[in-house]
């Protein structure tokens, strides 16, 4: 197996795409399956350079489509390789056939997503629908909100996914442009830290011509359910592993992340935003601004959506009066007729004796930034609902209503 160039801990100023590429390098991946689509392409460009100049010894395979990318990744992972791939937007959809087989055969492939709006008709901007549409395919999934977190999440996800108790693929997502193309300070670790944190990938039954085994043969109807049950178990049983790994990460690298939700200025808050990803950065600024003006507003950022931390979400959100879910995704005809986060928030809260009022905002759609005045508009809606004790409607389209 290749060894990345030995490096000491250092600070660099890079964007999310390059941070992901750096993470793949530090994880010493064996196989990279690439196919270009904006905005994630920059990650593959950076990796291509690393492989070309000898910084990273990996098989860099340019596929002929995203479907092939994932097929290559499936095969490579089955043979025991640590695999890195990625995509954006419609590219994520094109590979759809492979998501269930990869998790079904329990191959810990890692896929980097830099979100992009799905067509029509070809908007470059970020929207989480691309990755979220695959959320029930058996992949571990969560969003980063900046380049440093993206870098860290890649290492953390490999460690979780490759744990023999888990063996599941991972989607490590970041907002297109807001993370992928915005430069920030990133601490690149000492190689020794990474080696301590992330042991080499070892599949117990790799495809090996000397020791033939079958992966994914045709099966009988009665053999399907136990496999599904096993996959469901793996997803549930990954939860303690996720917590343990975040703990170890904090010990080795000195950055502690709550694996499930990040709370920001929730002390004494009556109303909270609930969101994923990059808009948390602007949300935090807005909340600070509102708090300075006496508004009791806080933020809950969901860090891991699969497996969904139901208990944790209930426990955290039960403290508040009103929860405003910022979707940044499309759930056409869904429960709220807005996005897909709302229904899972509500479901998590259903058994809570103290239920906050929950409604959602369609904001940050199409890759538009959510600006300060829109946060104010949303916060006022939540405060109104708190005052009234009743929601006006389940979904508001921000920027399209008064």
């Amino acid at each position, binding site marked *: 197996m290749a060894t990345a160039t030995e490096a000491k801990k250092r600070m660099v100023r890079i964007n999310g795409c390059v941070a992901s590429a750096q993470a793949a390098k530090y994880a010493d991946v064996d196989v990279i399956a690439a196919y270009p689509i904006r905005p994630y392409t920059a990650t593959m460009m950076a990796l291509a350079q690393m492989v070309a100049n000898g910084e990273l010894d990996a098989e860099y395979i340019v596929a002929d489509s995203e479907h092939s990318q994932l097929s290559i990744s499936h095969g490579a992972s089955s043979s025991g390789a640590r695999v890195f791939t990625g995509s954006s937007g419609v590219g994520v959809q094109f590979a759809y056939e492979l998501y269930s087989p990869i998790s079904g055969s*329990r191959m810990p492939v890692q896929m980097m997503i830099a979100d992009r709006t799905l067509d029509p008709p070809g908007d470059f901007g970020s929207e989480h629908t691309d990755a979220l549409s695959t959320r029930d395919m058996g992949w571990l999934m969560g969003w980063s909100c900046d380049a440093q977190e993206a870098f860290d999440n890649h290492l953390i996800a490999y460690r979780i996914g490759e744990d023999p108790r888990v063996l599941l693929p991972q989607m490590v997502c970041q907002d297109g442009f807001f993370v992928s193309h915005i430069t920030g300070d990133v601490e690149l670790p000492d190689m020794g830290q990474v080696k301590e944190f992330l042991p080499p990938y070892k599949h117990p039954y790799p495809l090996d011509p000397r020791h033939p085994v*079958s992966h994914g043969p045709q099966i009988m109807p009665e053999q399907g359910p136990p496999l599904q049950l096993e996959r469901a178990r793996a997803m549930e049983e990954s939860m303690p592993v996720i917590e343990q790994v975040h703990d170890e990460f904090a010990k080795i690298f000195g950055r502690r992340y709550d694996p499930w939700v990040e709370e920001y200025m929730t002390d004494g808050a009556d109303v909270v935003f609930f969101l994923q990803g990059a808009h948390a950065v602007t949300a935090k600024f807005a909340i600070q601004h509102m708090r300075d003006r006496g508004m009791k507003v806080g933020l809950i950022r969901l860090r891991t959506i699969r497996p969904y931390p139901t208990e944790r979400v209930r426990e955290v959100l039960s403290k508040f009066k009103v929860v405003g879910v910022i979707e940044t995704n499309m759930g056409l005809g869904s429960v709220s007729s807005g996005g897909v986060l709302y229904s899972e928030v509500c479901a998590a809260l259903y058994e809570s004796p103290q239920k906050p009022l929950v409604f959602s905002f369609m904001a940050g759609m199409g890759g538009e930034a959510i600006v300060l005045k829109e946060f104010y508009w949303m916060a006022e809606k939540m405060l109104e609902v708190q005052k009234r004790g009743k929601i006006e409607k389940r979904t508001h389209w921000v920027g399209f209503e008064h």
Partner: protein
Amino acid sequence: MSTKGTQIPDWLKVPFAGITPAPTQEKGQDLFPTGNWRSIRPVYRDKLPPCNNACGTNEKIQGYLDLVKRGKYLDAYALIKEDMPFPSVTGRVCYHPCEQACNRGKYDEAISIRAVERFLGDLGQALAKDVVKAGPSNGKKVAVVGSGPAGHSAAYQLARLGYQVTIFEKSPKAGGLNRGGIPDWVLPQDILDREIERLVELGITIKTNVEVGKDVTWDQLKKDYDACVLAVGLIDPNSVRAEGEGKEGVHYGLPFLRDIGMGTSKVKLGARVAVIGGGNTAIDCAREALRQGAVEVTMITVEANPQEMPAVPEDLHDMMEEGVELMHGRAVTAVLGNGRVEALQLHPAKFSGAINASPITVDKQAKPERFAVDNVIIAVGQRASLKWLPDEFKTERGTIKIDRFGRLGDTNFFAAGDVVQLGSGQPLMVVNAVGDGKRVAFNLDKVLRGQKLEPRTIPVDVIFDLNRMNMTYFPHFPRVKQELLPPKSRKKTQEEVIQAYTEEQAVEEASRCFSCGTCNACDNCYLVCPEPCIVRDVRSNGLYKILVDYCKGCRVCIEECPTGCLEGVPELDFDTGVVRMDTAFAISPGLHGRQAQELKNLGDRAPKDI
């Protein structure tokens, strides 16, 4: 935790997360580690090519053609020598039943097998030392009576088996019919001499001028040798039983040819010669007559047309080219002349039953024809001279009585060649006598080693049907013709009429071979396998291996096998195999596993031969 408290029954447990066992098997991964999609398994099963099957001595023709194709001439020569002691002879004289059987004949033109055989035979002639060695001596002595094709072949095989062989030959020179029955312009004497030398090199003793019954008796053979092969041939010419047949100027086919061959001929032919008979010896006599100075040679046959003549068509054609006339449907009823033949009396005649094998009906009522000639050569077959043989071993048709293994009763005497084949329906040809000699040698060896002689019971699969091959791989390609001397000049000389192939011609012709039903290492299966699960460690004939652990039974290699060697064999035919998915859905959980177990226990299926 939705999965809390769930349990997976033992029979559905997976060996490891995500790794599915092959269905319907308790230990699927052990039995067939890459899944059980396959219902048929590709198996290399070489068939018998029709040429090998048709050859009187079952030469491995496809095998040596393939070796010639690859430039491995010495290996090809060694392969031919397993069944044929003198390819240089048969490469010239054989009536090549192999070429009649050749599947390529149905496609464009049959392979010119004889020409390639001659190429190899001549190569062997040029070797200072032959590739064939005598077997380690077993201390046993065998006498072979007769040095014609059958005796030669038997002696050769027996020497290879380790016997001390002595050949008794009546004539002053060894060779039998090869020498006495085949003219020089077909088989030059020095070629045959070299092949006789090869026998001596194998340690065989050849005693010429020794006649059985006169110089060596039955009892002596019995006493002095552990066993004996009688290959005395047919030496007494048949008569046409015509009035005045004893007149001067009347000759008989074989003695005529034999005396020329031995260099003892005193025959001087006149200008007009009639040859009586329609077989190959008659053709040789007619053509030899031209070379002995005859000007007008006419062949008179009972057969009504050339197609009925029991002759090799090319030889007939070459004879016609040389100017021999044919006269059909007539029998000689009298030889006219005053002490010396002047003319023949001919009557219309035909065979009373099957052509060439039934009494002749002569229409004596018809007006006889007078046909003026200076000489007559009668070539209507030969018979054996068996006065020395105990009566119990004589048949009614004047041949030696043998069992199906060529053995005379329970003695250690065996017989082979024309002396047993006459009237059997098998053409009396060199290659058949060679095959006979070979089989008798092996049978004799078994008897002397105390083994039981048993008829062959394994059926052979001869591939006659082009549909069993993939003909898209074989472009049409004409046969490489052998050059012939021009008819005008050749009929005056003893020079070989048919010319040898060059090396390039031999390779080109051998390359036309389909290798019917036989793996010739063409690599097609190796290239088309999508899995891929065909290994090619050693690139020589047949040495591919199918990794059945990986094969999905997609049939691509079978369909794309040009020669039809690869076959799809049902998986259930293998007793070690995995039971396949039989039905799509089970009506109760786990039913498939139980069904499969029951299927496996179905009766006692005999494992089939792979």
